[in-house]
């Protein structure tokens, strides 16, 4: 569904490329995560999928990026936005300001696309039900919490029936309650069959939900694979990404001989618990 082939990009103002030789594939219906230190190129990657790079930015663009078979650089942005939805970091900035209730805010995209009224109403009500926000329908988007606003942003994109949803650090400005709301919304997105690319620092979230992680380091992909593998990689610290705390605990325990040497480091809470139970039972799993 999403294909990057040897993609290299430099911003018009910058000298050095921000992304170099990116090869990345996301299968249809997949849920992939992109992690990396600040400045590694994660947002640039997200924008390259959504098409704002190159269409809104210019810059030096080499290689190929395609979404659902359509080459991004060759497809006009108005068409791309119907295929790729984008959710950004700041909840407040994504409220259009054009509409005064949540229901109308969600419908805004469909209105701009000229969708017929009855179908629009059906789709809006369906999306609100799927994401559990039907109760917010008549409220002002500006009166919602950050988490609620982000779920409305997800709904506003989902209602346009995109093939892909790209989220660029959607929970980084939210409190844990708000972040949980967005995670639940992503569950609904997944169930609807939309392909998801999630750029985030929230490793635990990715551990539980993502099929594949891509680790960006200084503009290049340093590793990609299932969370269980990538999150356990010892190089994550030097890559500036870090690991979930229980993975760290297991790594330290292994050094002290308290984690079975041939057992993979855990990426999820469940795997960590299983591993540590074994450690205590067999007294460190040695001999």
């Amino acid at each position: 569904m999403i294909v990057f082939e040897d993609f290299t990009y430099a911003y018009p103002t910058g000298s050095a490329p921000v992304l170099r030789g990116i090869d990345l594939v996301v299968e249809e219906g997949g849920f992939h995560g992109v992690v990396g230190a600040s400045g590694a190129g994660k947002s640039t990657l997200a924008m390259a999928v959504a098409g704002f790079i190159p269409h809104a930015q210019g810059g030096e663009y080499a290689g190929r990026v395609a979404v659902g078979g359509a080459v991004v650089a060759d497809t006009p942005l108005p068409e791309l936005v119907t295929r790729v939805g984008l959710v950004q970091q700041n909840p407040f900035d994504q409220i259009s300001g054009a509409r005064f209730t949540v229901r109308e805010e969600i419908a805004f995209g469909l209105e701009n696309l000229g969708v017929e009224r009855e179908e629009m109403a059906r789709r809006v009500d369906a999306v609100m039900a799927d994401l559990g926000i039907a109760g917010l329908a008549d409220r002002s988007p500006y009166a919602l919490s950050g988490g609620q606003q982000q779920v409305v942003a997800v709904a506003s994109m989902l209602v346009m029936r995109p093939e892909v949803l790209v989220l660029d650090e959607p929970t980084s400005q939210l409190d844990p309650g708000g972040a949980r709301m967005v995670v639940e919304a992503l569950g609904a997105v997944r169930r609807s069959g939309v392909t998801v690319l999630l750029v985030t620092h929230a490793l635990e979230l990715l551990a539980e939900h993502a099929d594949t992680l891509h680790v960006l380091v200084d503009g290049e992909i340093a590793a990609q694979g299932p969370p269980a593998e990538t999150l356990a990689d010892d190089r994550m610290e030097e890559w500036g990404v870090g690991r979930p705390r229980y993975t760290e605990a297991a790594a330290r325990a292994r050094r002290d001989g308290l984690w079975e040497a041939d057992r993979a480091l855990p990426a999820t809470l469940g795997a960590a618990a299983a591993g540590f139970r074994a450690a205590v039972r067999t007294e460190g799993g040695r001999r």
Partner: protein
Amino acid sequence: MSTGLSVYRGGDSFVHRLNPVTKLAFVAAVVIAAFGVDSLWWPALLFAALVLPGALWAGVGRRFVLLVFGLIAPFLVILFLLQGLTYPDPGTVLLELGPLAVKTEGLLFAGTTALRLLVMVGAFVLLLLTTDPGTLMSAMQQAGLPPKIAYVVAATMQIVPSFQARANAILQAQQARGMDTSAGGALARGRRLIPLMGPLLLGALTDVENRSIAMESRAFGAATRPTALTVVPDSAAQRAARWAMILAAVAAVALNTLGVL
């Protein structure tokens, strides 16, 4: 219900339920009539017989009076002072105050202008008190207002209050770094505030960048003609009434010019 720059508080009177375009037509009609007819009593009559009763009927009388007079009061003072004392010759002098003279014509002119202002402000306030901003925007768009203009109005209403909050936050942040905002005279204080425009604009610019990406993602400005989710109720009777009001106003002006009224 909406937050932001809005005085609307909800309500269910006949006036509330009218299509906003009908109310706009009312505003246009009374303004045309008030400004077009050359008479002191005409605008007074329009206000007393149409605008004020409209507010009372809608049940927003108290807020109406507070808002209208609150808005007009500063202008009234200036108006009467200026026109009253500086009306050009010739004129019937009532009172002499040194080089300036209070003339009847001046007072009459000031009075007429004041009453015309009263009608205009009153009609607009009546519209805003009885119309949900969202409904107003929808109705205007359905009547043909370009989406981009409607957007600017709606977004300004909803986003400007956040500016006030931001400006406050910025001021507090600088005080928290030891900037004493109370020291010095007005000029010194003003000068100190100028660099603070920076963060406000910087924040606004970043917001604008992000929001324009979000708007693009929602296909704003797409080639197709936009549709609308909510239909604002209208009727043939209202449509007829709109034309009737405008025609009546124009007729009044015409008759007045011809010397009949």
